[in-house]
């Protein structure tokens, strides 16, 4: 997905002193060329790994996180103190078994948990990037991850997996670097962001930008924080991650610590109180500008558009002999029946495109009423499918049951 490079000056920076653990400065030798045409000379990626890389470096699994996720996949979160966001999927004995696989997850570029993004200091100015940070895309996130994977000496990832925006990165990985991905699991995702989803993101962005404390994006320099706007953005988004039946089951019309409605605008209902809590706790761990950048990256995502409007073309690979073949990557798409943000039809569109090139693809829709967030929750059937797919491919790839034995 190379777009023409515009006349934008390169943003080179001094790479600075030694790196703290789990963070690396990349792009020193050759810059990261972004879709916008901007080049990032040196940029930091925060990442985490679990498990041990085997001798022939064939057991690496890359986990791609969602919009507000980060690289703390399977451990206590340093800011919130909560358990890892995917500790049902990743860990010893889990479908992505850390006794067997070497798991990598990096905070996306544009993020706010240690990777280069609008919150970090632009060395050229000594001030936070703010809105001077270049607009990034899903493909840019993947380019940055590829540099990290190569830095770790891994030529092919055994598996790339992620849900939602993570699933977009998974698809992008398979399309951009098919030779570097053995198998992949794009979960609760789509090959493009729908108009409805762009609309929801726009509501969130407008909420942030309408907050006077946002200060045109310069709040970090002006020592303010658009917490109200960001909280509203989170509240609106959070509704889209759930489903009507799940909200009803959880809250119904139950009142919050009161026996009757108050004829006022307090949080009378439990669901209001819950959403307010979601909003307030979110602003403690997330940067408002990062939210703008990452939602934008999702909005711009459209794999078919990058391939002449035909999604199937994204999954054709031209060999050294000039002959086009189906992508060698083995896919397992999973969707959730009550997900209305990334409904099953979106996954099915990807499956149809993969079938059209006779690629190797599995697809399961998991029955659940938990909505989009189901991929983060306890859905035994989902993990059973993921485990089966990973196990089957690990055997085929010749990966033994423990990393040490390989």
């Amino acid at each position, binding site marked *: 997905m190379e777009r023409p490079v515009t006349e934008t000056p390169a943003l080179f920076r001094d790479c600075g002193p030694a790196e703290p653990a789990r963070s690396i400065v990349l792009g020193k030798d050759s810059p990261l060329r972004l879709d916008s045409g901007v080049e990032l000379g040196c940029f930091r990626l925060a990442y985490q790994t679990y498990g041990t890389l085997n001798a022939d470096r064939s057991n690496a699994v890359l986990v791609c996180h969602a919009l507000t996720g980060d690289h703390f996949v399977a451990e206590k979160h340093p800011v919130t103190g909560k358990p890892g966001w995917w500790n049902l999927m990743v860990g010893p004995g889990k479908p992505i078994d850390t006794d067997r696989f070497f798991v990598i997850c990096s905070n996306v570029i544009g993020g706010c948990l240690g990777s280069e993004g609008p919150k970090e200091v632009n060395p050229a100015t000594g001030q936070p990037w703010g809105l001077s940070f270049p607009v990034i895309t899903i493909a840019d996130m993947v380019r940055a991850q590829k540099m990290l994977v190569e830095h770790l000496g891994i030529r092919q990832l055994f598996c790339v997996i992620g849900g939602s925006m993570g699933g977009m990165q998974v698809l992008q990985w398979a399309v951009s670097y098919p030779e570097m991905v053995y198998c992949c699991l794009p979960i609760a995702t789509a090959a493009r962001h729908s108009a409805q989803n762009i609309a929801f993101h726009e509501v969130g962005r407008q909420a942030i930008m309408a907050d006077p404390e946002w200060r045109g994006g310069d709040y970090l320099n002006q020592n303010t924080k658009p917490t109200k706007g960001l909280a509203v953005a989170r509240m609106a988004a959070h509704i889209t991650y759930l489903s009507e039946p799940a909200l009803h089951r959880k809250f119904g019309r139950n009142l919050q610590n009161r026996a009757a409605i108050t004829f006022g605008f307090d949080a009378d209902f439990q669901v209001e109180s819950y959403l307010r809590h979601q909003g307030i706790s979110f602003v403690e761990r997330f940067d408002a500008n990062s939210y703008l950048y990452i939602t934008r990256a999702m909005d711009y995502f459209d794999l078919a558009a990058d391939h002449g409007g035909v999604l199937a073309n994204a999954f054709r690979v031209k060999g050294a002999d000039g002959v086009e073949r189906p992508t060698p990557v*083995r896919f*397992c798409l999973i969707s959730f029946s009550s997900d209305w943000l990334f409904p099953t039809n979106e996954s099915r569109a990807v*499956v*149809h495109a993969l*079938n*059209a*090139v*006779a690629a*190797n*693809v*599995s*697809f*399961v*829709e*998991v*029955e659940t009423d938990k909505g989009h967030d189901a991929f983060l929750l306890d859905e035994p*059937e989902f993990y*059973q*499918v993921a*485990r*089966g*797919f990973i*196990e*089957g*491919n690990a*055997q*085929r790839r010749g990966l033994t049951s423990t990393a040490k034995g390989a």
Partner: protein
Amino acid sequence: MAISGPHIRTDLESITAWVDEGARVLDVGCGEGELLYALVHRKKVDGRGLELSMDGVRRCVGQGLAVIQGDADTDLKDYPSNSFDYVILSQTLQATRQPREILEQLVRIGRHAIISLPNFGYWRVRMELLLKGRMPVTDRLGYDWYNTPNIHFCTIRDFVMLCQEMGIRIERSLILGADEKVVDAPADSGRANWWGEQALFLLQRT
């Protein structure tokens, strides 16, 4: 799919025997993956499956098989021509809405198609209708008329004639009678259509 009972094993065994080692195989209506699993592990095929029931799909993927949820009536058109060596439709054609279109798709997608069918011309079926005047319910066709998923029954003769009409060559056939004993008769014979409880065909587009 539909037909249950101990008979299914022999049916699948014969199909397994017909498929070449290492071939590319699409199993349409693969159920819980019994045949596909056997083909992948015994014949080392590059196997894919298409299955309507989500339960079946989950079981298959959970065993490491490459299977997608989909409907043979609508989804086969997405597959490119000649993308598989064998496309298998086992005991499913009679349950589809458009058997003729499906048959066309099968021989388009695969260099060969393998189809197995229950025979509505089987003598017991004929007797049931003749003597009792009721829709036949046998071991192999164990549904009442109002709840059967099998909406497009045919006899072996019907199927052979359809193949002729569509220019499809029957490369090989196997007629199984009572207790799955092989009926030694060509597929287009009256004996096959009388004694055969089910039939297997290896087909090719001409």
